[in-house]
């Protein structure tokens, strides 16, 4: 067998794992538990985030326009709104559609609604604007108002020429803008609240994992303090002693990561499909992320966690025993 420094250290790390089966298994189980919890919150986190994004996307405002607005102006308005940063979709709803909307709202008062047909349709046409980022609602609303005013003034000169009635000339082609302000504000609060809570839980879990792994490795190191002191007497440098433990920590971390990934992978889609089948989500037509969509991220997170916790845990627990 051929040995050089590095292969010796890595070989030691591996053989320690097999020689100390009990503590290795304890470490792996502990780590799998922590990482499973981690994965659970990660899955909840990304899905809640994904859901909230979908809900957000459906929120926005109604931009009502004056009946006198020309086709040209409408197209201009639509293109300019679409070009705004933070706008998701812009859909035009004409007067007839607005009426139909009202009709469906007052289903049991059809006779009342009948008076608004055709010429008597008082409901204005509108653009339904949804946003990608609800935080920018106010900003975008102001922008749209500005665009409306701008388009109106651009055309005023021509309109005067055509001697159109004074009363039909407005300062803006936009009549008014409505948005479900309160709903949106609540939603924003909830989103940031949930994000913060998940962030805090993540940090706490990370801290607890490192502490637990560090303690488990500390027990291993403690059990082998004799070996460490012998190494020190024979003239081993600290890094020479430390590396096999770090390699051991990394290997334990990776094994735990793989096991957890398998468990999460097996459970995830089943659970998600059950949740997706629930009535509330169906009604809101909200979908959740499938495992394949989060697999890459979660694998990277786990690999980093496993290796990171392995290194940190063993490095932290070694310190005391190297002072011989």
């Amino acid at each position: 067998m051929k040995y050089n420094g590095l292969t010796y250290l890595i070989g030691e790390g591996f053989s320690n794992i097999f020689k100390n089966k009990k503590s290795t298994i304890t470490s792996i189980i502990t780590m799998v538990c922590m990482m499973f919890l981690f994965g659970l919150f990660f899955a909840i986190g990304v899905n809640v985030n994904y859901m909230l994004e979908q809900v957000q996307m459906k929120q926005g405002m109604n931009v009502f326009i004056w009946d006198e607005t020309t086709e040209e102006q409408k197209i201009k308005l639509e293109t300019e709104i679409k070009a705004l940063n933070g706008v998701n979709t812009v859909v035009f709803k004409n007067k007839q559609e607005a009426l139909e909307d009202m009709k469906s709202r007052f289903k049991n008062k059809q006779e009342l609604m009948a008076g608004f047909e055709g010429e008597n349709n008082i409901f204005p046409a509108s653009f339904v604007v949804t946003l990608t980022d609800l935080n920018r609602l106010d900003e975008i609303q102001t922008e749209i108002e500005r665009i409306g005013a701008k388009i109106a003034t651009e055309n005023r000169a021509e309109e005067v020429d055509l001697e159109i009635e004074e009363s039909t000339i407005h300062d803006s082609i936009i009549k008014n803008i409505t948005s479900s302000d309160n709903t949106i504000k609540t939603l924003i609060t909830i989103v940031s609240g949930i994000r913060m809570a998940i962030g805090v839980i993540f940090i706490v879990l990370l801290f607890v994992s490192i502490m637990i792994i560090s303690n488990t490795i500390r027990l291993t190191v403690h059990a082998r303090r004799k070996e460490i002191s012998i190494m020190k007497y024979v003239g081993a440098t600290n890094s020479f002693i430390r590396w096999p433990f770090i390699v051991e920590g990394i290997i334990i971390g990776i094994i735990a990561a793989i096991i957890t990934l398998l468990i999460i992978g097996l459970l995830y889609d089943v659970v998600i499909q059950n949740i997706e089948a629930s009535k509330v989500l169906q009604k809101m037509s909200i979908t959740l992320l499938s495992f394949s969509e989060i697999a890459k991220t979660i694998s990277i997170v786990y690999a980093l966690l496993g290796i990171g916790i392995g290194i940190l845990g063993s490095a932290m627990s070694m310190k005391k025993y190297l002072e011989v």
Partner: protein
Amino acid sequence: MIEFKNVSKIYDTGTEAVHNATFTIDKGEFAFLVGASGSGKSTLIKLILKEEEATKGNIVINGKDITFLKPKRVPFLRRSMGVVFQDFRLLPDKTVYENVAFAMYIVKASPKHIRRQVPMVLSLVGLSNKAKCYPNELSGGEQQRVALARALVNNPSMIIADEPTGNLDPETAWDIMHLLNDINARGTTVVMATHAKDIVDAMKKRVIQIEKGVIVRDDKKGGYNSEI
């Protein structure tokens, strides 16, 4: 080789384990450190190994003052000496061969060198046929011989032995002493702390006696007790 100049060691608890010790052990010498338990023998050994820092005075090893040696350099100091303990201190999950080879991995010896050197020292201590045994399969004397082989394998200029025969029956103890004597005859300095009166008396080597931290006697060819 080993030079103590007015060395004192006061532990954090306030106990003065060594007081103003001055002595020189030359290259190739065989020196016993004798004294009752708690007299300061072990502290002297620890000072030589730089396991403890001297509170006062200077210690020179192989011409190098180790008083202010950086902790990072301590492993390299220890590589110049082979250490043997009363309790053998072998790695229980490694074979005899691996226990000895282990000391060579640490100094990053080449695999070729390791394959040649380990069987050689094992045959020197008479354990060639036990290379594949684990420490718990060996007798106390055999375990101490493995420890001795480990101490010797890197060709140190000195062997520091802290009561190497303390856990052995008289006959086995003499096996170890013969080995140490042979090693010394090849030019390796041996410093041995011990309680074993009969051994010290029979060997007729240099004896440094320490009582309550003070060196009270330094005889060129002495016995365990002073011959007054």
